[in-house]
């Protein structure tokens, strides 16, 4: 028996998966998502602005977010339909597909991303897998060929949908981070990026979710090599009055003084004036923000 919430969630998931009734396309590089204005615009004023004004977007029905980080866009769209992103409860099932997909995925990302960035294709991400499962029939569809994708979206749904059992737990309950995220991977940079995109497009639920995940992962992965990059990401991608991730980091530095002794951290601090300044104030015993 599905609970009413689960019923809605699974309906949304299948809408997303099939692209049924979709009336808007979000494009990010080579990827495109068939989404629904009703669901998207009611969550983000940015999208609403794109749809309600007579700009190009509302005429073509395509919003091109190529300028944004594709991973962040991916997670944002996932959140809009699933209220979560980077969930691993389906990883065991999706491994098959993700391995199948790894090749085109990695190829695509490699065209747009700096080589140093860790390769998403290597991540066992159920959402990515799902998204690509939906697009499998036309994996290389260019953005201007959207109509075709709408048509095939419904038929490309796999009979053995991984979404079906994704909502055994109530998604409206507090996010169960411990079990939902692969403990092996820190994803600190990912969360920081999601946080930034949520801020940019004004999706407050996603923002707090990303912050929560970030804080949780940070605790588990202090030693991670991602830490310095995450620090930079957090300080460079949002306006400095936004304390969400900054406070978490400062508190972490405060609790773990030895972090500053790490070489890679030192480099990051040197390169991130905002962080350096706040660490200085912290060390001087001043309030971190000078309001």
């Amino acid at each position: 028996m599905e609970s009413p919430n689960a019923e809605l969630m699974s309906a949304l998931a299948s809408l997303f998966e099939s692209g049924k009734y979709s009336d808007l396309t979000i494009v990010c590089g080579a990827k495109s998502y068939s989404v629904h204005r009703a669901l998207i615009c009611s969550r983000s004023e940015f999208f609403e602005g794109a749809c309600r004004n007579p700009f190009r977007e509302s005429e073509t029905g395509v919003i091109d977010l190529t300028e944004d980080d594709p991973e962040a866009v991916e997670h944002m769209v996932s959140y809009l339909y699933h209220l979560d992103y980077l969930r691993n409860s389906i990883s065991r099932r999706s491994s098959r597909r993700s391995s199948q997909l790894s090749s085109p995925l990695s190829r695509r990302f490699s065209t747009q991303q700096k080589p140093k960035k860790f390769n998403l294709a290597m991540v066992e991400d159920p959402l990515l897998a799902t998204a690509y499962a939906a697009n499998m029939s036309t994996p290389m569809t260019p953005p201007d060929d959207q109509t075709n994708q709408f048509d095939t979206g419904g038929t490309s749904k796999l009979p053995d949908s991984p979404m079906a059992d994704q909502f055994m737990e109530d998604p409206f309950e507090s996010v169960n981070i411990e079990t939902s995220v692969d403990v092996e991977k820190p994803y600190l940079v990912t969360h920081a990026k999601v946080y930034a995109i949520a801020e940019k497009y004004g999706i407050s639920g996603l923002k707090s979710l990303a912050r929560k995940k970030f804080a949780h992962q940070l605790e588990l992965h202090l030693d991670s090599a991602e830490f310095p990059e995450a620090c930079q990401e957090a300080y460079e991608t949002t306006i400095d009055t936004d304390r969400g991730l900054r406070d978490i980091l400062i508190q972490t530095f405060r609790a773990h003084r030895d972090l500053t002794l790490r070489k890679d951290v030192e480099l990051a601090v040197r390169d991130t004036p905002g962080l350096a300044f706040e660490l200085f104030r912290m060390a001087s015993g001043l309030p971190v923000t000078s309001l």
Partner: protein
Amino acid sequence: MPLFRPQGLHGDDIDFENTWSIIASAFKEIHTKNASRLSYEELYRHAYRIVLKKKGEELYNRVHQFEQDWLGHEVRGSILSLFSPNLLADAQSLGSTTANERRVAGERFLKGLKQAWGDHQVCMSMLADVLMYMDRVYCQDNRRPSIYNAAMVLFQKEILQSATSDVAGRVVLGLLNHVILDQIQMERDGDVIDKHLIKSCVYMLGDLYEDELESDDQRLYTTSFEREYLETSRGFYRGEAELLLRDSDAGAYCKQARRRIYEEEERCKSTLLEVTMPKIQKVVEDELIKNRIREVVDMESGVRFMIDNDRLTELNLVYDLNSRVDDKKDEVTRAVQKRIVAMGADVNNAALAASQAPAAAAEAGDKAKGPAQDKGLNQQTVAAIKWVEDVLELKDKFDRIWSESFQSDILLQSALTRSFADFINSSAFPRSSEYISLFIDENMKKGIKGKTEMEIDMVLDKAITLLRYIQDKDLFERYYKKHLCRRLLMNKSVSNEVEKQMISKMKIELGNNFTVKLEAMFKDMAISEELTAGFKTHVEGLGEKDPKRIELGINVLTSMTWPLETMGGAGDDDEGRRSKCNFPPSIDRIKRGFEKYYNQKHSGRQLTWLANMGSADVKAVFPKVQQRDGSTKERRHDLNVSTYGMVILLLFNELPAEENLTFEEIQAQTNIPQNDLIRNLQSLAVAPKTRILIKEPMSKDVKPTDRFSFNEGFTGKFVKIKVGVVSSGNKVESDRERRETEKKNDASREYQIEAAVVRIMKQRKELLHQQLVMETLSQLAGKFKPEVNMIKKRIENLIEREYLERIDTAEMDSYRYLA
């Protein structure tokens, strides 16, 4: 570990000027309606990055400047091009252009302004969406108005406050107000205007504020337009009221006023904003109603005219208007009350005139004696009935007005009631109680004959309706008792049932206390019937049936219950003699028989025989004597005479035919009081149709030396002949009688006041004079309204009799109860 650098977001890799020029040119496209070529995402991203790089303030200022320039150059120019001589001319002086020319020019101006405003709104909402991140982050953190709101203020400043070529120095806003007001005035004058267009401009004023704080009372609509609108309207309606009062009648005035109120209400819905509705209504109500209602009500064609001519619709209009400005509806109430009292006074005066005119004539003709006065009294009775009918008619009239024109308003109902009570209890008209009782009396005796139960009920209810207004219920009770007494004893009531119905209605209306004595009278009647029947059976049981036996019908009346003293129509001095009447032996025998029978049933009770109140049926045989028509038949008649009449006639039974008796002889033998004797002899020997006796010398007056003999030649058309005795019906009292009644009533009031005072003091022990008077008044309110003087006298009297004493030490007059 190599450092990862986030793409495009770090450091100084953003050139503000470049980015701004992209944005600015895009804004130009938006303003020229070419937005569909632009990418929203791109613009958003540019703005986002600028803000992210802490250049939010600069961006904000640039946008602000951009809009200011745009409005100042592009938009203002197009507005100024709308000014035509016709538009500006009317702003300076009316009359130089026709209304139509003004309207066309005005509409062109309004259309242009509406267009500019609409464009501005659309563009600004697009800009605001592009600059969303700036609004969200920069404006909120720095407490600056959103760019949209700032642009609205700009429109206000750059367009609405820009000067016109108008010589009066008006700015565009002033001109706009003027044009709208001018158009509304055209509509008031009967023209058709483009309400929709005006409404668009009004909405604009509703969306714009004096400053950037945007508090509700700072809307341009409120601060600028509405104020002017209310002012102009006030002037207009003041003038219209003036004009209407001069040229129209009150009904037309009210119609127009109501139409105007409705029009303004509609205007607020269709042309202006609804927030104005209560304000403009107040203006119209002030100018057309509040300041004028008194004049309107008092106009020649005002409330009085409407009442007199049953203009129910117009009265309703007046009422409606009055109630708009005054919850108490003082003016209408005042006028209606005045009219009721005046009309009531007319009714009273008509009744007085009808009752006094013939009486005065009779007095002039003779020294107010016998039939002449009788006739007068009869006419007075007619006047009484007419008075009641008139009052009821008046009441019906105002009831109809009340329910149809005054929406059954409670306040007016009590005002009407007060006014009716006022004239009914007017000191100039002391006869209300008596008249109402007479009205009932008349209906009980004749009026209800042949009527259905429903109709009878209506008649009774009418009486009750009037009774409610009566203040001195005790006086009414006195009259009612008297009239009822006569009806019962003389068997005048058409229906005993109806009588009882009336009593029970009074019981509901006035309470048990009021009817207890009346009910006792009915009880006496019932018991008497049983006694009569019982006595008859008793007599039949005594022996063989005697053909000559006299049948006795008797009414035993409890002396305290019945107003016996009012029955004789004679003074108290006759009281003593009444019992001394000598009955003929045959009558005396049966009288004694009944006394014996009665004493067996109720020992210890004393029966007093009231011969003056009874009647008798006498079979009379007139011998064969020559008639005027020559026949000599023997004639038998059943004579119905008073008991005294019977006693007199029986004297002649024992007298030889040719002999006669003098008045003094009759008086000596019968011992009938002189007054009664005279009246009875008059009806037996003077009244033309019932001359059973012959009086010598023949004259109207009866003198002690007159001689009476049996009239053998008497003829009558009917077998049954009723010999009426003067003054036996219920009629309006003569003045003398009224004084008598009032005197008795006062005596009873004195007693009731004393009783009330003692009751109150017994409970309160000590009381201030003022309070005692108040409480006494309230205790007696249901019965009558005593004069304060009378209460004072009674208190003095009670002090003398040592029921109360003055408290000497008290500052104010106060009393103590002495047990």
